[in-house]
Every structure is written in structure tokens, then in C-alpha cells.
């Protein structure tokens, strides 16, 4: 039942937000319907598909399993925060070139997972990539091109880091 609203402060994609929400309001709904950041998708609402994956204080988390109120003060990155309207992030470029998305509904979740994964493991082999991606479901691509894209993204990021 609707309870007293609580104040939630959050930094999302570098911008500060303050909102009043019910304590039970889901983080995914908060992003999508309070902040109009609809790039984060909901595929199952029970923590299995990974479509709702965002970065919470730099670590991936499922926004369908958490309450916005519990994340008061957190720093969040959603898919909209990866590249904004600017040039694509190397991970996005790799997905584009490999045709690693079809309907694209799962893609925001895969991008968040990949970005975190390649930070912790910049030079993964295919097995490690496959393992890292099991947190996200895709029904269109058969994962083959996603795995290729992550391999390629790792290379791009390493090369970028060398140049920088």
C-alpha cells in the first residue's frame, strides 16, 4: 500500500537528482519513470535476464532487484551515460561493427556488464568472456557476435590505453 514517501538523492550519469518516492519504488522504475532514463530495460523483474543492469558506484547491479530508497546517495551510470550523444564508446563501436545486437532490448545491459568486466579483466580469453556474459540474456543474437564484440572491445580499449 502506498506509504509515506522518502527523499532520495542520487547522482546519475554525472547529474544530481532529488526525488520523493515510495520506499518500495524499484530502482529500475525510478530510472525509467522518475528520471525518464528509459535505456535501462526490464526483462524479467526477478534478477535473471540482466536487461536492467546499471553501474552502482562503479559495480554492476540489477536495478529491478533494488529499491531506489536503498540507493540514496549512490552514484549511478546507465546506458545513457556511456557516450551520451557524443562519439560511441569503444565497447559500443565494437558491438556495432560485430553486429552484436538485433532488437537491441538486451543491449544496454550487455554494454554495462562489458564495460565493468573489461575494467577488471582487460585481456580476457573467450572462456572468460562467455562466463562474464552469463549474467545477461539475449534471445536474438545467439551471443556469438556479442562474444566477438567483447573480444574486439578489449583490444580497442587496450590500444586506446596505450595511445593515451
Amino acid at each position, binding site marked *: 500500500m502506498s506509504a509515506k514517501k522518502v527523499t532520495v538523492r542520487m547522482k546519475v550519469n554525472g547529474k544530481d537528482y532529488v526525488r520523493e518516492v515510495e520506499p518500495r519504488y524499484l530502482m529500475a522504475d525510478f530510472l525509467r519513470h522518475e528520471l525518464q*532514463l528509459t535505456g535501462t*530495460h526490464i526483462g524479467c523483474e*526477478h534478477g535473471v535476464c540482466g536487461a536492467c543492469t546499471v553501474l552502482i558506484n562503479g559495480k554492476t547491479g540489477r536495478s529491478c532487484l533494488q529499491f531506489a530508497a536503498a540507493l540514496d546517495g549512490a552514484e549511478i551510470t546507465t546506458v545513457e551515460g556511456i557516450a551520451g550523444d557524443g562519439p560511441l564508446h569503444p565497447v559500443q563501436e565494437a558491438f556495432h561493427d560485430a553486429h552484436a545486437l*538485433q*532488437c537491441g532490448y538486451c543491449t544496454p545491459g550487455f554494454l554495462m556488464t562489458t564495460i565493468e568486466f573489461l575494467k577488471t579483466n582487460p585481456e580476457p580469453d573467450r572462456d572468460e568472456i562467455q562466463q562474464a556474459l552469463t549474467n545477461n540474456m539475449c*534471445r*536474438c543474437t545467439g551471443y*556469438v557476435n556479442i562474444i566477438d564484440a567483447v573480444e574486439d572491445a578489449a583490444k580497442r580499449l587496450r590500444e586506446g590505453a596505450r595511445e593515451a
Partner: protein
Amino acid sequence: MKAIEDFTLIGKTVLRREDSYLMRGKAQFLDDLPEPKGLIHIAFVLSPYARADILSVDASAAKALPGVIDVLTGKDLAGDIKTFAPVIEIDGYHDVRRPVVAIDRVNFVGEYVAVILAESPYAAQDALDLVDIDYDPLPSVAGIKAALSPDAPVLHDHLGDNLIFRTAFETEDFDARFAEGDVVLEEEFQLGRVTGVMIEPRGCMAWPDPIATNMTLWTPTQIPHIVRTAIADHLDIPESVLRVVTPAVGGGFGTKAHVYPDELIVVALARRYGRAVKWVQDRREDLLTNAHAREHILKLRVAVANDGEIRAAHLDVRTNCGAYPNHPYSPTLEATAAVRMMPGPYRIRNYKYDVCSVTTNTAPTGAYRGTGQPSAFLAIEGMMDRIGRRLGLDPADVRRRNVIQPEEFPYVNVVGVRYDTGSYSQSLERGLEMVGYDAFRAAQPKDRLVDGKYRGIGICNYTEVSGTGAPGWRVRGFAKMPGFDSSRVVVEPDGKITVYVSQADAGQGHYTTFAQIAADRLGVSWEDVMVVEGDTAKTPYGTGTFASRGSVVGGGTVIRCSDKVGVKIRRIAGYMLNADPERLVLKDGRVIDPEDADRSLSLREVAETAYSMNNLGLPQGEEHGLEATDYYDPPMVTMANGTHVVQVAVDPEDGRVEIERYAVVHDCGRVINPKIVEGQVHGATVQGIGEALMEEIVYDDEGQHLNANLLDYLIPTAMDVPNLELSHIETPSIDTVGGIKGAAEGGLTGAVPAIANAVSDALSGLGVNITRVPLRPAYVFEQIRQARAERESSEQ
């Protein structure tokens, strides 16, 4: 006019324009659309019973909840929405209609019993638990065999039994021909019940205009025009005031190619309340109520000559319709597909089939990628291996003995389907070569045990029906399935091009590939072509995107339509240049006279003349504007083909199947965009791996659904994907425009039988007979355990 052979952009990988907005999180899926003011959110109360009488519905507590607008039952809606049913005209089919919200009786778990209308989705969810419904549970039935038993409860009284569809066919003197075989083999195969599991569940939103005469329905459907017709029919509103628009669609796979009760309901409610109405499905509802598929039992009996030639085949197919026929296919869809596709790439001339479909207290079944074909090929390809085992022949040789040879095309199969071109034997040979089939067989021990695991190899050589035209739907009873698709190609006043197509993309990349096609035909860059589809108000009428028809029918109409506009462009340019239009060439965004290279016009200059934006005027008899419309009804069907060869290892310790080699040969005729075709093959193949090894919706005997979540209904993850080795053959169709064949389903159709055959081969040394999918570890383990136990007891 440009010959098909002169394609410059068709056949090239162009990276998709869709990707940028999808990857930036800017796509507008249904639940991402801006919400209109005064939006009503609805939720459905679902039946917890497989079969029960509804004695009473008390919604007073729910209605009292703040934010709840109303709670409606089936009775409340009966005046607004007619009982729902597809239009099927085929002998042996019995009409069954359903109220879109149950009235006195529920017939499956998940059936809608009441609708909550609320100011917010949270309020609607809260109210769900407060609707007090008094049910009187009744005896129920879930499986095919149980439904056919004489004492089974009858779901729909007017049928008298649970048979909703039954038909049969046989060629002349079938029994005599059958008797001519040297040996007879018979096997019963089974496929589990599966469903599409698009990562985006369904949902829809109806939005009346302020005076509530015109209505827009946003729905992620693969068949917007058919949805509009069905809603107009069942709500008694003119089609002209209803507009169906597809937002971005998060995967379809056939599951979104149905008309669903909720689509009728949101429109009816929006009319009644004069407010926008929105519904978003959750995953549990997806698994409980969206169209399921398969759950087939196939009994195949063949008479075979000693050299392995199939002399005659009799296929008996039983399917489970669920509680009601889905719209627009009914259970005839998979049933007729299975029996009509079974002859596949083989020379089967004496054929008999029997089909029946039963109603049960389970969710309605319908379309899903592959439709009947994984079943047909599980049977015939499984039989090829059994013939080999029985006659001591290599199963590859049995296929070689029966496969249609290159010189036999065009070939008309035993049920009258024309195979215009194909690469059936080349594809088979290439697949075998890719995995080193001969070497594997030569090294394979009789007991199949290598390094502690049973290792086997399986083949599926298949045909893939695609681009079905009107005649193909009519023979199967789909009286209201148009078959054609259409397009309108417009050269705008500025010389840029807009292509309106009657289809609806669900991830296939139409916005890129249809632009490639039009650009190719009109000699412009593909970036200058915009594609509009999924909107009944903007595009001409058509059938939609399912059953591997997008490229064949959509692609075909865009070719034809672009060429029609090309004729007018040349005619006007010819007048402007004082040159014979026939010799003008469209290239690089210009109309060029090859005999005088200095004389050329930009498309914009031609368009300005067509739109009366200069002083030139049009030639006598020429109409203004620069566009054309085309309706393309393709042949009855167009057959793509391919071969999967799979090598597996089965672990006797836990029954797990590991795929060690996987070769796919694929022939979909003329390819428009190779990378996109590759994506279709990958995606379908991995769905096939899911259907073969893990996916199954489980009902208990009473019809209680046991796994309506993604922890218990398993779909493949990245860990389940083997290294797929792909090889393409390109044998253009001679019957379709552009030589295009479909590509979306073959991967799944090939995978299910090939994997089952590989496991079957691996366990053949043990004497295990694999006849069903999915082959989940517990099942496989149990088969191995039993076989070993029998062996031990017989050795004692």
C-alpha cells in the same frame, strides 16, 4: 532497366543504422514511450486454476483502494468485445470462441478473470490481491494423450470431445506402395512445449484522440495490419479510425505475431473511458499466457528398400492447441506445417499423413520460430539414422540415397510444393566435410565411449519454408491471411527517398536492409533512403514480419516498387533531357545519359519537375508526384535449405550434453546483407540448442504451470554457445523477385534434429533410444543409468 545481376548494394554488409540509438538507450520500446496525460494503467487478475467455474467475483476491497479506478469482469466487457476467434476455413477444423476475459469458466492457468484499472502500475498491482474470486475447481486435462482418452473431461461442450482439428491425406494406392518396401520402421518422436521468451515481454497502449473518434494502438506486434483488422472486427469499429503502430520491438520470434486479447481490451477500455490505457506484461504473464509452441507427438512409419531408399512414409502428428485457438492461426498452423514440410529435401513420392489437434487446459499454442519444421525434421532425420542402423548403412549414405539431386530442380514435392532451386546435396556434403565426418565415423568405436564420454555425430538436412504467399496460406485454411506485402516508395521534393513497407521489424534490421535495396535500385546512397514501417496509417496494407517472410516479400516489394518509381524518374528525366528514357541510368544520385555523359540531372532536379517546383512543367499526361505503390504476392512458398552437423560428448556421470563441433551450411538464395543473415543463423541456431537441450514449459497432469519464471524455464546463455562454423551457399530463387529466400528459421529447424541425432548416436552403443527433446541432463542421465543397469543384469 537494371538486371538483378547488377546489384551493387544488395549482397554487401552495411552496418545497421538502428544500432546507434539502440546502444545509446534512446530506442522507444512500448514502455519507453512518453505517457499521455490521464493514462489508465491496467493489470489482469489471472486464473490460478486450470479449469474451474467462476462462482463470484468480489472486487469491493480492490475498488476501495486509493488509485484504483475500476475493476471489470468478463461480463462487464462482453458488450464491448465480441467473443474472440480466428477465421479458419479448412475441413476438420471446429470453431471455438473465447471471451477475452473469462465469464463463467476458466480453462487454463493464467486466463484473464478480471481487469484492474488504476492511476498507476503500483496501485494496479496492489489491487490484484484484493479481488476475491470464488472458484469451483473442475477436473482438468493437460497432455495430448490424456485429452484423447475417452473419459477425459471435455473442454468445449459443442465439440463433443477434445478434438479441435483433424485432417488426413494420402497419395494414390498408398498401402500398395507401402507394401513394396523391404523393411518397415516405425518410431514415435516428441517435442516439449516451448515459447519465444523475447527479452522484452509484451504490452500495449491505446490512445484515443481528444474527441475519441480516432484511436491509436501502440503494440509491439509483428503483424500490425492483421491486428487492426482483428480489433475492428471484434470491437465493431471501422478500420479507418484505428491506427496500429509498433514502437521498437524487443524480439518477436513468432510469439509477437499473434493478436492477443489484451490488445482488444485496451482499445475497448480507451473507448469506454475516453482516456489512454496501458498494459505492460511481466515475465510470469509472458510464460503463462503468450503463445506457446510445439508439444507435438509424431509417429513416423516408413517402408524402405534394402538400399536405404524410402518407398513410402506415413506421418501421424498430434498437437496440443491449448485451451483456445490463438488468433490468427489456430492450432492448424504447426500441425499443417509439420506434415507439409516433412518430405523436406528428400524424394518421397508415396506419402500419407494424419493430423489431429486437441484442446487441453493449458495456454493456447501458436507460432514460434520454425513452426512445425523442427518437429517434421526431428522425425524424418531421426528416421534416416534409424534406417542406417537397421540396414547397416552409414546414415549419411541413407540421406544421399534419398536427397533430391541438383538436376531434378525445379522439383514439385508430394504435397504440391515447388522447390524452384536448392543445394540439398551440396549442402549436405559440405556440412559433412566441415566436421570431418568420414574420419570421425572411421575412428568411432562401437560403444561410442571415448575418454570416458559417449561421443556421437548427428545430421539434419533440412528445407526451410519462407515467404509464404496467399496460396500457401489458403491450402492450410488461413482464410484471412493476406500473403502479400506492399510498399510505397516516394522520391521527396528534395530528391531524398522514403520507403514505406507494410512489415514490422522486431530486430531484423529492416531500416537498413530495405534502404539498401531501394538505394541499389534507384542508384542513390543508402543513407539517403529512410524506411518507415510498423504503422498502419503510413504504410499500405500487408501481412507482416514472421515465418521468414521479411526479406522475400518485403524485399521483393521494395525492389518492384523502386523499379516502378525508377520508370517514372527516367520518363520525366528523358523529357527534361530530351533523351530516350529507356537508355537513362540511375547512378550516384543522378540520372545519366550514358551516350552523353555531360547530360545528367540530379534526382532533386527531376523531383522538382515532378512536384512543380520549377518552370518546366510536366509532359502531357504525366501526373505530379514521384512515387509508386506495389503489392507483391509471392509464390506459394519459397524453399531455403541447409545442413547442420553436430558432434557431441555425453557425460555418463551427469547426463550433460556438450557440443564439441558444430557446422552450419546455409542457403537462403540471394543475400541482401551477409552480416544480418549471419546474425539470423546464429540466433536461430542457439534457440534450437535451447529447444534441444533445455527449454520446456512444464504442466502437471492437472494443468498447473510449474515453471513460469526464467530460473526454471531455461534459455541458453553465453556459456551454452559452441563454436559455430558457418558456411554459405547462395542459390538464388528463380520464382521470387530478386532471387531472395528467407533466413530466419532454418537455424532452429536444423539444430533440434541434429543435436537429438548426435545424442542418439552417442548413446546408440548403450542401446538407448532417444526419441524426444529437450534432452535435459536428468533425463539423459536416467536413460544411461537404465541402459547400464539392464546391461549388467543381462550379463549376470
